[in-house]
């Protein structure tokens, strides 16, 4: 019984789909061309991620990344890369808002699967406060990259 409880709680976090992305990363390996490169670090544990991005016609065109980190930060980045590839900026903004809401929801927020796709698998991670930053690492990096591109094209 004890074993059951334990595996259930740990598997709430390590959903199959999370481990899938961890085992088979998407868009990993930095690529050309790109308009902006950002480097983000999880200051509490040292995980780091580099994201390259090019925006074209208002859509996330080229997104590649590399990094060192735990299964949560790495799989979250992969899932994000897959979900937003070629999507327009408004779609990314909506997804980011929904993912942030989910991760800060202490495990009681029901995520919108239409918006998040596979990323709803992170619902279980939201229960573990210390891992929320891991799941958000890639998202914050892409947000930063998008902001910088917008800034440079606006003026």
């Amino acid at each position, binding site marked *: 019984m004890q074993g059951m409880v*334990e595996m259930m709680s740990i598997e709430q976090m390590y959903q199959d789909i999370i481990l899938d992305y961890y085992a088979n990363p998407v868009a990993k390996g930095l690529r050309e061309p790109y308009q902006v490169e950002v480097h983000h670090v999880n200051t509490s544990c040292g995980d780091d991620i580099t994201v390259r991005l090019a925006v074209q016609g208002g859509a996330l065109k080229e997104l590649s990344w590399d990094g060192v980190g735990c299964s949560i930060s790495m799989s979250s980045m992969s899932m994000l890369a897959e979900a937003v590839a070629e999507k327009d900026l408004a779609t990314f903004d909506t997804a980011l808002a929904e993912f942030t809401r989910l991760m800060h929801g202490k495990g009681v927020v029901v995520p919108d699967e239409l918006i998040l796709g596979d990323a709803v698998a992170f619902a279980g991670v939201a229960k573990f406060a210390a891992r929320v930053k891991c799941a958000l690492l890639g998202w914050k990096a892409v947000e930063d990259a998008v902001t910088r591109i917008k800034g440079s094209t606006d003026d």
Partner: protein
Amino acid sequence: MDIEAIRADFPILKRRVHDLPLVYLDSAATSQKPQCVIQAEVDFYSHHNAAANRGAHVLAEEATEAHEGARAILADFVGAKPDEIIFTRSATDSINMVATAFANATMYAQQGLPVDARFVLNPGDSIVVTELEHHANLVPWQELCKKTGAQLRWVTVSRDGSLQIETLESLVDSRTKLVAWTHVSNLLGHQIDHRPFVAAAQRVGALTLLDACQSVPHMSVAVPELGVDFMVWSAHKMLGPTGLGFLWGTRQALAAMPVVETGGSMIAQVTMESSTYLEAPAKFEPGVPAMAQTVAAGVAARYLMTLGMAHVESHVRQLSAYAAARLGSIPGVTVLTSADGDPVSAVSFMVDGIHPHDVGQLLDSRGIAVRVGHHCAWPLIKALGVPATVRASFSVYSTHDEIDQLVDAVIACQSFFSRALSHRGA
């Protein structure tokens, strides 16, 4: 030491997490507290609470006596005199106080006011630290150098975790004003020989500061024998309360050091134009003190002294050796040690192919609390060429059985991830 009897003194060890008994292996981050320490705060608040060193009524006298009595116990604990012990917020605060004293002296000197030249920093002066410092004993010195134009230098760490101590000779020169280093590494766990640092500093007349956060809780430290000018540590890592740290200094160093924070209870006389100050320790302790915490810290020090620091040290060293040996014998697990010495009370390790964060999570699911990450020693992490580590750390209440549970959990973690990842073709 009768560990079962000791464990019975710590209420939190009865806790269950995820329906499993707590296995607390994170004592280097903060130690747990015995009932007598917890009760000391309760007793203070329930019977003697009043502003120490200020009032003339009975409660105030009792509070003063309890507070100053605690200072005497803490002094005794490190073989020092009571007036050499300054109560601070934390070890971090203690280090920053010394750094601020340097900044203050530098500013006074710029205004043409008299100060002890040893605390004055000019461009071209230097401060020497090591690459294995906790951020608390690194960043304040970086900031001080930024503010004064002085240069920060450091003894580097080799891949084998040893300090390139032979470089001290050239790093410490006649322009060096301070040498600061840690007594026991919070990441690799080994003790560092203080003698070369003290010798190098004394050769040039530089002040010295020892970060004893990870030594004083685990071994007998007779600070006057070390030859350093300042030593810092925290109450919360030595079975004591949170919110309290210590700065020890020689009488000469404390007399020469400019005031840092100012306010009530540290003044001799105050007019609107200027103020004069009392001598140490009052000189460095403005405001109503953390009385409940100082009293509880005294009880913690007594508890450790009653166990006997030699016994405490031998217990944690045995546990560390056992943990290093057992973890090291698991295929795919690497224990990070220093060629400079064996771990005192903390063991860092890596599990091949599994990020420390994931290891920590799996251990937690079995009720085992360890610390994962850079352990506030990021430069050391980079010098060792690892992204992060898992650290198991011990105290008087830790047991061999807990280490066995840790080992089993690490093996279970390996199989969880290898099962999870292998059929996914990673």
